[in-house]
């Protein structure tokens, strides 16, 4: 019998979660619809002046992305926890961190990537310039994976708790503030005619840090929660 | 604004009422809560012991 290599395992877990998400498409769509709705509510709340909306756009899109990624985090581990699959993952001879990383990647592809793809359409609603839009997409592309990864820690810690969803947001949102700041900062910089390199490199650095540490931390959190 | 004027005329009252009184109130509430918590815990422990003794 052939043993599965680590990258093979990663691909397997990602593919599994993607197939599952595809068979339960409603969940993916609700997150996306939530994102679109929150963003569309802002002009209704603050008025239709284009100047103000253009200024707010990056902040609104980022906060909405943050909130909608919170929404889907609760499901990250809970389904696997309830049907016993998570138990099996903990007993797998491979490193749990790798399996967790796979789940994070899949979560991002299901709940983060659609937001990134949707962002240009919403940005146009806010009359963003093409430059700013490009930077916004790039910053979301770098930033949303961090949200999924940091969020996974919270999801693992609140696994199986009552009121887990609200608690999860309470734990994770403060930790996501730097991502929000650098993400929106980049868009503001390009609008002001400045370079976006420092913002992007900081976001990239955060992404690398998250990539290195969060799978392991999440695995530890899962072990604590499953005991 | 009247508060602004009042605040500039009575800075010390403002400081005392606004900051120090609030801070010491917070401390007092915390102390009271901790003492209350200790009382409750002691009562619980006694109840546990009495219940255990009867068994």
């Amino acid at each position, binding site marked *: 019998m052939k043993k599965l290599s680590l990258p093979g395992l990663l691909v397997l877990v990602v593919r599994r979660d993607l197939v599952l998400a595809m068979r339960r498409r409603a969940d993916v769509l609700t997150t996306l619809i939530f994102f679109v709705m929150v963003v569309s509510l802002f002009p209704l709340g603050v008025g239709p002046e284009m100047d103000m909306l253009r200024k707010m756009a990056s902040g609104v899109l980022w906060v909405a992305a943050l909130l909608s990624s919170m929404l889907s985090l609760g499901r990250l581990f809970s389904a696997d926890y309830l049907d016993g699959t998570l138990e099996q993952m903990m007993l797998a001879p491979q490193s749990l961190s790798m399996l967790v990383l796979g789940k994070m990647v899949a979560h991002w592809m299901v709940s983060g990537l659609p937001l990134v793809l949707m962002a240009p359409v919403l940005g146009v609603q806010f009359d963003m310039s093409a430059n700013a839009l490009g930077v916004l997409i790039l910053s979301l592309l770098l930033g949303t994976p961090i949200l999924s990864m940091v969020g996974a820690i919270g999801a693992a810690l609140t696994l199986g708790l009552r009121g887990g969803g609200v*608690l999860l947001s309470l734990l994770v*949102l403060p930790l996501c503030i730097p991502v929000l700041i650098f993400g929106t900062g980049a868009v503001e910089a390009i609008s002001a005619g400045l370079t976006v390199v420092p913002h992007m490199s900081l976001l990239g650095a955060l992404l690398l840090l998250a990539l290195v540490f969060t799978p392991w931390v999440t695995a530890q959190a899962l072990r604590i929660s499953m005991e | 604004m009247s508060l602004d004027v009042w605040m500039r005329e009575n800075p*010390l009252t403002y400081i005392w009422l606004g900051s120090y009184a609030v801070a010491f109130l917070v401390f007092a509430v915390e102390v009271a809560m901790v003492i209350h918590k200790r009382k409750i815990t002691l009562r619980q422990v006694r109840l546990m012991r009495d219940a255990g003794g009867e068994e």
Partner: protein
Amino acid sequence: MAINWFKYSAPTTFYGLAGKLIPWFAIPAVILCGISLYIGFAVAPVDAQQGEFYRIIFIHVPASILSMFLYMIMAGYAALGLIFNTRLSSMMASAMAPTGALFAFISLWTGALWGKPMWGAWWVWDARLTSELILLFLYLGFIALHASIDDPRRADRASALLAIVGSVNVPIIYFSVKWWNTLHQGSTIKFSGTSMHIAMQQAMFTMLAACWMYAIVMTLMRVRSIILERERHTKWVTELPEVQQ
């Protein structure tokens, strides 16, 4: 078996030790607080720029310092508890959290009161105030997570992990907020803008010492309750004089 002895009887001995230590910190805390208020209001002169209002810093600065240090110490204890599985350190961590959160609250409150006469607004999105607010959120998250898990062991371990992640994040948050603030041309008035009079320093440091003592007293008192609660099934608890009566 030395380690085992340490592990299992530490809360037992610590309970008595903490009880004996409390008055030794409580009384100096009150005395130092009194001294600080005397120096701060009777000795220290009026500040040329800020008038009487600067006197808020005698409580504001110690509260801010305490809230930050307590978070770090809490994370340290939590890490000890998580790595070495020592129960007492986890209890210490959870005993410190409410005090730290209250200090963060006091710091925010007094900061706002200082801001009103200085900046003309109760709340300014100043880097330090904003980080303090986020710190308060981190405390609340820790407390909420601990409170919502029924099994004490899982609660200790889960919130310990959160505290560690939070403490790694605190510098990143502080840096990002500071950066964000300079980007938006925030307020530039600073406490240390003018050179501090020696009496002002004395008042602040005595208050800082008083706050440390106070925090220690609160932590010890709370940890005693936690020990009693966790160990209520054991024999030594039922044999305590305060339980016997």
